[in-house]
């Protein structure tokens, strides 16, 4: 049954791992958002030699489990090219690559949502390609993607327990270790669930609030 003394004993141990878990999430998110940009641009590219292979690779990454991709980084890369990464880096890179395919899709829909007239207007005003992107396209395509990216940040945070499979010591791994020394899994695992809920639920509420606000603003712009 539930042991409160034990719960208070292990709570600090678990809280101690929270910053690391958040660091993994943020580092993975940065990689995913940076890698997502060239992916999105390559997939929109007019040259088929470029867009078809990139689309196929992204599709492959999206349709295969993260846990296998992590295992490839940890077990196959050392054998194949002699590159052996510490679990933390392997985890962050795997998480980043996996979700870059999702974020590229978000960017792509953001870019495609910019009305065609904007491109035509930029051409009519004699804007150079780079100037068109920086002054016209990005300012309009980035804001709508912000809530979606926020959601993916939360999704990635919840995906960090998968990294325990390659021995990254995050929340779930810590709970399992605590449980295996005392044979009390109930308290440790319940606390892990509650910690995840305590962090991800308020974040989700913030994202939803931003989304609502932006929808309202979008509507008021349209009615003006």
């Amino acid at each position: 049954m539930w042991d409160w003394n034990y719960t208070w004993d292990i709570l600090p141990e678990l809280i101690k791992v929270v910053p690391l878990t958040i660091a993994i999430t943020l580092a993975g998110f940065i990689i995913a958002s940076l890698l997502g940009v060239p992916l999105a641009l390559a997939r929109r590219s007019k040259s088929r030699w470029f867009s078809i292979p990139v689309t196929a690779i992204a599709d492959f990454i999206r349709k295969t489990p993260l846990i296998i991709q992590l295992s490839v980084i940890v077990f196959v890369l050392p054998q194949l090219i002699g590159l052996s990464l510490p679990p933390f880096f392997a985890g962050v890179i795997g998480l980043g690559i996996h979700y870059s395919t999702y974020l590229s899709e978000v960017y792509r829909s953001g870019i495609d949502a910019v009305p065609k007239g904007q491109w035509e207007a930029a051409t009519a005003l004699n804007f150079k390609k780079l100037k068109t992107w920086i002054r016209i396209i990005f300012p309009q395509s980035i804001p709508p993607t912000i809530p979606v990216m926020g959601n993916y940040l939360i999704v990635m945070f919840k995906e960090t327990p998968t990294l325990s499979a390659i021995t990254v010591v995050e929340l779930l791994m810590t709970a399992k270790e605590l449980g295996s020394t005392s044979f009390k899994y109930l308290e440790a695992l319940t606390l892990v669930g509650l910690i995840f809920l305590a962090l991800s639920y308020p974040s989700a509420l913030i994202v939803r609030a931003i989304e609502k606000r932006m929808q309202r603003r979008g509507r008021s712009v349209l009615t003006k």
Partner: protein
Amino acid sequence: MDMLAIDLLPPLLKGLQLTVLLTIFSTILALCIAFLAGFARLSKFRLVRGFATVYVEVFRGTSLLVQLFWMYFALPMLVDIRFSAMTVAIIALGLNYGAYGSEIVRSTILAIPKGQVEASIALNLTPFQRLRRVILPQAWSIMLPSFGNLQIELLKGTSLVYLITLAELTYQGMMLRTYNIAQTAAIFIWILVLYYATASILTFIIRLAERRANVGRG
């Protein structure tokens, strides 16, 4: 060494069989839960709405792997019943993806224009007929693409079940690796290919269903 390492396939295919079974059973469970919870969140009764909201937020707010571990290792300590790994896997996958699915159900039902409901009331349809003949056929065709994405997530989610020692595809691969370290690369390539092929077949089936649902709609 045989480059393609065909001899690795039989044990992996045995694992794939379990992965597919797991996917089918948990998809069925997730679909039932998604509709149940999705409608519950739109209920007139506050208590029903409250329960459904708590369920959805808890299962979306914690991760699938934590839920699997909790049901497999922690729950038996609380209630003194031990479920088999297979049962835990199906229930956890069903509850987790059911929570995500219920959001799809809820939002698409809300997206059906109000005039449709008003017209069915004007035509004197019963609430059940309204749902069965007017709302659901329209909602279903909007839901399918999102369900398709969720289906792929569920298939990928089954790989985590390896960590509670269920002998599906990932587990078989990891076991094979411990006996043939030299063939690690070939093993993982086969696993990736098998998951990709399964996911592509599922996507194809859902595309067919989408086409069927869209027959007669502009």
